[in-house]
């Protein structure tokens, strides 16, 4: 912009800024007539002038605060731990490498400081409750939670096993591991997640950055249950929900219910593991976001189907594409289904399918829209395919649901006496009911009535309306849920 023009823009701006707001528009119109560029400049300066300087001050102050936070903490002692250096920083706060200063152990640990500004009271209360469960965790692929407390200034911190390793994705890349080796590594990750699920702990933030592979080639999961410690969910705080969805969670691995701020269950971890597996197989993330705004993230995660892994690989690796096509496409996309109820019911089932694939056995998952795709296939190949193949496909589909029914509803389980109309979806729905009730019970035991109520209500919603059977087993579950709901409501009232 020429000097004279900048000068005149300033003059107009300064004069307009001193006018009464109601007179400005007319004045700017008159002074900038015929020069839309100058007019835009003046108007945007006026708008900025009206907002004051708070944003600038806030940015400077927060930078100072962050600088001082770091320098404050390195060298500081928290309980028996001496902080050595900052090793990471994320939405939740900074992570430091530390060692015990009391000489008891030589062991190095990771200390996670909770970012100032998060709800300290809430975190501490939750931490006290969760540490019982998390502290008991003992699995070779889960980084141990060791300790926790509050620094002198009131900031909560969490002490975890220190793992010197690389992200699982980077590890596989640097070692140039093949598909099978990657899957075997991934299976160990699944076993860790399943272990936690059996104790009713959902990770909620599974991503390569939380899955490190140490020098011995052992994958280690970090931050189990930490996400739950730090954030409330479903407390009606919209802002909070949006922040988690778009900012703090990594949108590439977050499932639809998570970005929508809905309750998170083991199905969410199944989805995130699916996304991690997707990346391990293809080197690409399942979703691409044009912008990282809550709206775009929600739209993409909830509405767009991920491209099949084999299609991603096809572009530059035909051999890999052929390896992924079929089973692995199906398995990964099944884990990543938009509707939680349509994913693998548990991580174990996800892992089972991978094991089956590795053993060349038939997998249990079917491709999405199986019938639709077969129809499309038939249409594409109308001339070449005869009636025989159409029948074969139909037969395969029928056979499948029979086989699955027997697998999912074996004789002797609690659902065994259900009528034989039970199909695949129903079976998985009922399993879900069972899981949710057990989850509700575990919350109830901890007197977490709100979460308990939520679990029971979800369980209730999972029982299909059209299931009119008066099977005693089903009735027993219905009664059980009603009792649970009543109990939880009573608990909530007493708390008030």
């Amino acid at each position, binding site marked *: 912009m020429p000097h004279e023009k900048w000068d005149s823009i300033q003059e107009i701006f300064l004069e307009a800024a001193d006018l009464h707001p109601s007179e400005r528009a007319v004045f700017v119109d008159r002074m900038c007539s015929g020069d839309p560029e100058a007019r835009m400049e003046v108007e945007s300066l006026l708008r900025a002038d009206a907002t004051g300087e708070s944003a600038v001050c806030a*940015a400077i*102050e927060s930078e100072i605060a*962050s600088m*001082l936070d770091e320098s404050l903490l390195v060298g500081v002692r928290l309980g028996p731990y001496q902080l050595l250096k900052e090793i990471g920083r994320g939405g939740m706060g900074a992570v430091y490498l530390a060692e015990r200063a009391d000489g008891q152990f030589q062991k190095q640990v990771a200390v996670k400081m909770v970012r100032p500004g998060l709800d300290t009271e809430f975190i501490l209360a939750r931490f006290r409750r969760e540490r019982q469960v998390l502290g008991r965790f003992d699995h070779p692929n889960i980084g141990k939670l060791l300790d926790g407390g509050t620094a002198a200034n009131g900031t909560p911190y969490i002490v975890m096993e220190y793992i010197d390793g690389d992200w699982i994705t980077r590890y596989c890349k640097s070692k140039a591991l093949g598909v099978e080796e990657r899957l075997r590594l991934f299976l160990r990750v699944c076993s860790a997640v399943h272990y936690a699920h059996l104790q009713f702990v959902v990770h909620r933030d599974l991503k390569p950055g939380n899955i490190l592979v140490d020098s011995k080639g052992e994958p280690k999961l970090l931050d189990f249950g930490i996400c739950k410690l730090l954030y409330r969910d479903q407390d009606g705080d919209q802002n909070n929900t949006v922040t988690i969805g778009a900012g703090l969670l*990594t949108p590439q691995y977050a499932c639809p219910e998570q970005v929508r701020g809905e309750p998170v269950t083991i199905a969410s971890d199944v989805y995130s593991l699916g996304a991690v597996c997707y990346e391990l197989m293809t080197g690409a993330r399942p979703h691409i976001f044009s912008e*990282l705004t809550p709206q775009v993230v929600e739209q993409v995660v909830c509405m767009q189907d991920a491209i099949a892994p084999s299609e991603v690989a096809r572009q530059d690796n035909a051999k890999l594409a052929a390896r992924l096509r079929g089973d692995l496409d199906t398995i990964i996309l099944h884990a990543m289904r938009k509707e939680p109820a349509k994913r693998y019911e548990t991580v174990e089932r996800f892992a089972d399918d991978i094991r089956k694939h590795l053993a060349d056995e038939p997998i249990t998952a079917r491709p999405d829209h199986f019938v639709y795709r077969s129809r499309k296939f038939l249409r594409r190949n109308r001339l070449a395919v005869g009636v025989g193949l159409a029948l074969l496909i139909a037969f395969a589909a029928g056979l499948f649901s029979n086989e699955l029914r027997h697998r999912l509803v074996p004789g002797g389980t609690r659902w065994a006496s259900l009528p034989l109309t039970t199909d695949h979806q129903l079976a998985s729905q009922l399993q879900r009911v069972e899981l949710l009730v057990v989850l509700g019970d575990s919350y109830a035991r901890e007197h977490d009535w709100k979460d308990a109520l939520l679990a029971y209500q979800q369980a209730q919603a999972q029982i299909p309306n059209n299931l009119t059977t008066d099977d005693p087993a089903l009735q027993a579950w219905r009664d059980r849920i009603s009792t649970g709901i009543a109990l939880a409501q009573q608990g909530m009232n007493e708390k008030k």
Partner: protein
Amino acid sequence: MSEGQSITMLLRDLAAGNKGALDRLMALLYPELQRLARGYMRNERTGHTLQPTALVHEAYARLLQQDQPEYNSRAHFMGVAAHIMRQILIDHARASNAEKRGGKAAKVPFDEVAEVVAERPSAMIAIDDALQELARRDPLKAQLVEMRFFGGMTAEDSAEVLKIPVVQVRRHLRVGQAWLQRALDGTSEPEKKN
């Protein structure tokens, strides 16, 4: 010669128009201010937000308390200190930004950048970029804005250092502040990635 005395002399040289004095002054003040900034919080941090102004005043009080230089030198000190404060903060912002990208920016594949951006874009970097652009267009305004935000200097202080009428300083500041604020509003929109 004590540190305070040498700073006083350099300030006097600077006021007399000796450009070399500025570099030496900055080399002397940068570590001092940084040390002070870090030490300051160790003792006095209890919840209140800290402004760079407080740091600069603190630095002045500690470094020059014995020498009690004249107003002219004090204003000069503030101006230089403001510039250094900005430098310290932007150095920190850029370093932690690089660290977030794994400390080895070149090695991080492009697709991981989006994740990093989502975590915490540094508004400080945006401020610095905007100030640099303003300096290219209108260096005086950039300097005044810097003095205001990073040194907590009043229009009178700046007028004294730069030898221009206070009324003019106020006008420049109003434009400069609006300019900076506007640039910052622009960056508060999410960046386009991928």
